[in-house]
């Protein structure tokens, strides 16, 4: 009863007696699933039903298991954890992540790194969408109005290295933040959150607009800022 924190025992569901396959099983489980603390004497089918019910209620489910009878549950769960030393082979095959040290604390580590990965992907997207849009737009505009790309081929190669290789090395390898406030759990941790969030679209669009405007102004006027003016259209490029 320690697990229940002194709550009445009705929150313990006896799997075999209460749950059986029936037409309205879905309704029963979804109603009860939020209150369940312990599921006693359950069959593999009951574990499976519990996971499906939790997913129906909108949760992401992680399952830790090690036995042959848990294979269904491991497959159905969003993330299946399996014990590396004590688990059987078929459970390892069905699971997504294997605990090499058989330690439950690794669940927290997996959660932290999982959140970190999606955050890093978001950071990378936020950077790369802006630079890509601006680069394509300015090359197109230069080609259409001046008859040539403002950036030479090798320059574009360098820009591409910055936006792909170096950004991947620099931004996407960031370790998880140790700062609770920085993790900002409410803002981007829900299941229905999209990969590019409104705040990111805002940053991308503003950045794109700024860079594009500055570059367009520079494309047509910079020679006269520094008294190196020449005829933009007639000049033979790269002479």
């Amino acid at each position, binding site marked *: 009863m320690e697990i229940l924190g002194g709550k009445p025992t009705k929150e313990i569901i006896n799997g075999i007696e209460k749950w059986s396959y029936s037409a309205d099983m879905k309704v029963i489980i979804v109603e009860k699933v939020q209150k369940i603390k312990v599921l006693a004497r359950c069959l593999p089918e009951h574990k499976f*039903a519990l996971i*499906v019910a939790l*997913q*129906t*209620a*909108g*949760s992401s489910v992680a399952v830790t298991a090690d036995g042959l009878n848990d294979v269904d549950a491991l497959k*159905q769960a969003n993330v299946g954890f399996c014990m590396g030393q004590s688990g059987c082979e078929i459970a390892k095959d069905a699971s997504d992540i294997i605990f090499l040290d058989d330690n439950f604390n690794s669940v927290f580590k997996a959660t932290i790194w999982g959140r970190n990965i999606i955050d890093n992907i*978001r*950071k*990378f997207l*936020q*950077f790369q969408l802006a*630079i890509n849009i601006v*680069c394509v737009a*300015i090359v197109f505009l230069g080609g259409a109005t001046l008859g040539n790309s*403002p*950036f*030479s081929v*090798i*320059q574009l190669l*360098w*820009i591409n290295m*910055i*936006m792909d290789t*170096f950004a991947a*090395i*620099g*931004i996407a*390898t*960031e*370790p998880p*933040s*140790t*700062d609770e406030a*920085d993790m*900002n759990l409410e*803002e981007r941790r829900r299941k229905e959150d*999209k990969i*590019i969030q*409104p*705040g990111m*679209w*805002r*940053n991308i669009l*503003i*950045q794109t607009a*700024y*860079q594009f405007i*500055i*570059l367009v102004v*520079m494309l047509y006027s*910079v*020679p006269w*800022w*520094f008294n*190196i003016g*020449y005829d933009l259209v007639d*000049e033979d490029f*790269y002479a």
Partner: protein
Amino acid sequence: MRQHFTILFNTFVLMNLFNQVACRKLGWADFKIHRNFFNNFWFLIVLFGEFVAQWFIVQVFNTIFRTAPLTWPMHITCYIFGAGALAVHFLGKIIFDDKKVFGKVFDLNFNETNEAGKSKFFD
């Protein structure tokens, strides 16, 4: 005229290098770009290397990159507009601050979220 396009190229790269720093923050009103700045060794190496390489591309490797050495006023102009990317990042966060209004305006994802509970079990 090579100087003209070198200024353009230099400004574009510098704007994105500063934007790279700003992009590490994802929060709606997260202004603290100094926080956790030094937590990623590779990021610092890459950022420093990019700045140095960019300088050499503009000033030294002129034949390969079709650039021309810039004068100091030109360099300063490039860096001002480059750092402007960071300023604009902050400015956007200040102007579009109201999440209730602008959260919907900037919600540009067109695909619907997947429904939970699409499983083989209840079909």
